[in-house]
């Protein structure tokens, strides 16, 4: 039998032999290879949310892993599934990343059962980031609703670590009820150490709640906005975007100075599966961080 055709073996390509690095978008070949990682600690935040500290096991891979605020990773529980989760920790922190995960579907439910030390898989980072470097010398408004504080935590850390680069920094945060507030153990630190103006509101208070009750937009009434030198980062449920961004537009902030992070189901993170498409824009490639003008131009975005 003559060998007319010769097998092609992609694993012999030079690119594929390179260490796994998802920041090399054009040349990465082992796209479904995961970084084996360990859950090194689990912090209970609320009834529904836990914060997972996850460390990539391979030393060199861990050293090389770098992300920017607003990016996400695909978290895999082998045998059960893979989901996109935005990174909640500081981009400058090298040892581990933090992932704030709400118990909502199959993978998150099983993750909530996992114990410290459990081996899971990580791919990434993926997606766009908040262009925090452009915001240097300006005021920053960080506005979060509900679980939206999780992706905001990365830019918050960045701001804290580079506090002198920014002028006034406000965090406006709202949830449905006090028991749903995330990261409340850090509020004092943000306020006192980092000189960040933190305002929190809940839609429905309870007996012990002494803080504000109302909508997130109410908090904006208390902030003096200098539109020409202010950037806004907004994260939360879709309905919140419209209200907050319209309000900020009225205050005079340009639409391309407001950044939102959109949530979609993703099965790949790499612009292939189309599950996250808005119109025909891939949230995983062109997002999840978009400026508000782009969002307005996306059909069916919010």
């Amino acid at each position: 039998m003559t060998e007319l055709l010769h097998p092609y073996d992609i694993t012999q390509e030079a690119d594929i032999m390179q260490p796994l690095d998802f920041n090399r978008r054009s040349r990465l070949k082992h796209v479904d290879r995961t970084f084996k990682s360990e859950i090194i600690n689990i912090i209970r935040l609320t009834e529904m949310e836990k914060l997972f500290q996850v460390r990539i096991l391979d030393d060199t891979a861990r050293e090389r892993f770098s992300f920017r605020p607003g990016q996400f990773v695909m978290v895999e529980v082998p045998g059960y599934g893979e989901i996109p989760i935005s990174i909640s920790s500081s981009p400058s922190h090298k040892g581990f990343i933090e992932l704030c995960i709400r118990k909502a579907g199959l993978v998150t439910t099983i993750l909530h059962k996992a114990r410290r030390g459990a081996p899971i898989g990580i791919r990434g980072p993926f997606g766009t980031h908040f262009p925090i470097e452009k915001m240097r010398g300006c005021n920053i408004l960080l506005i979060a609703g509900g679980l939206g504080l999780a992706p905001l935590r990365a830019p918050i850390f960045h701001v804290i670590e580079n506090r002198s680069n920014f002028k006034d920094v406000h965090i406006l945060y709202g949830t449905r009820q006090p028991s749903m507030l995330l990261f409340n153990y850090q509020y004092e630190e943000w306020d006192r150490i980092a000189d960040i103006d933190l305002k929190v509101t809940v839609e429905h208070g309870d007996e012990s709640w002494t803080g504000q009750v109302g909508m997130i937009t109410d908090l904006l009434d208390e902030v003096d906005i200098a539109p020409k030198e202010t950037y806004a980062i907004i994260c939360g449920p879709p309905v919140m975007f419209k209200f907050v961004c319209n309000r900020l537009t009225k205050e005079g902030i340009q639409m391309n100075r407001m950044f939102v992070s959109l949530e979609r189901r993703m099965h790949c993170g790499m612009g292939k599966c189309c599950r996250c498409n808005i119109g025909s824009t891939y949230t995983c490639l062109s997002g999840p961080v978009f400026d508000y003008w782009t969002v307005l131009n996306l059909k069916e975005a919010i």
Partner: protein
Amino acid sequence: MLFKTLSKPEFRNLVDLLLGSTEVIAPKQIGVNNDGKPLHHYLPVQEFEEIDLEYEITEYSAKSYFLPFRENLSSCRFEDDDWTQEIHYRLQPRVLMGLHSCDINALLKLDKVLAGDRFPSPYFISRRRNTFIIGIDHYPCEGGFCQSVGADVVTHGFDLYLTDLGDRYFVAINSDHGYNVLMQVDAKDTTGQDNKDYLEARQRIASKFEPLNMHNLPNLMDIEFESEVWKRWGKKCLSCGSCTMVCPTCYCYGVDERVSMDGREGAKVKQLYSCNLLDFAAVAGGHNFRADRETRLKYRYYHQHRGFMETYEEPLCVGCNRCGRVCLAGINPPEIIRDLQTEDQV
């Protein structure tokens, strides 16, 4: 491009050589439908006689040889509360023959997404590079509109491409692989007469198309985004995903993981999915970004004729109309596009 001619007996010799050396996939008649019309599929063949190059169109496109309906992305071995990941890519070469221009153009479009510069897919590339493609010219098929989307001719994306000149084939050679394989048999240099016959054959094919008005379609998609056209057609959609399964360019998928019953092995399985299925854009927690049939149907057309155009300056559709043929409800691109074109015209 290099051209040669191949007599019909020599062509048979070539196919026999290939059959003797590797797996060959070719159009094969699998039966007839209720109206007595032959049904064809691309299937593995053992004998030259099984191949039917006179086929009009295959029910399914050739896509699934590059994007299988189900594919293991990785496997996992579990041991002592730990696991190891294993990944394998396709290594065996094979021949895929009898592809019409639409199916080859579809592969070129898939190349842009899956073998382009953002996270090229090793699974796709391995299958693509291990497939030797022999295409063939044909007359327009019923309901097809490939010419209107520029998919009736191909200039690359194949190894050999045949045009039937009666007693011989006119062969376009597009790769060194193709050249080497063709040189195994007695291929002749083209003469002036061959060229003349070839151009005439192409002319005959080209004259048989009925054009579909695709003018300004991407903008029309935006302008008619809220149009009644989508409501009318959307109401008919069964949300069964058949259109996307037979489509040569639809590449959307879902990923699902499995564990063996003994708990020792796991698999991450990619399954081609369809944007017309109810839960395509549903997120954990229950919200569905495209909960009704109309928006899902519209999304498929929007992606094909607006979104892909925006990124790659060409539509994702190759005009084969397989989706229109398979749809029990009769939803088909030519009629939808005609409706969009005429909806707001006085």
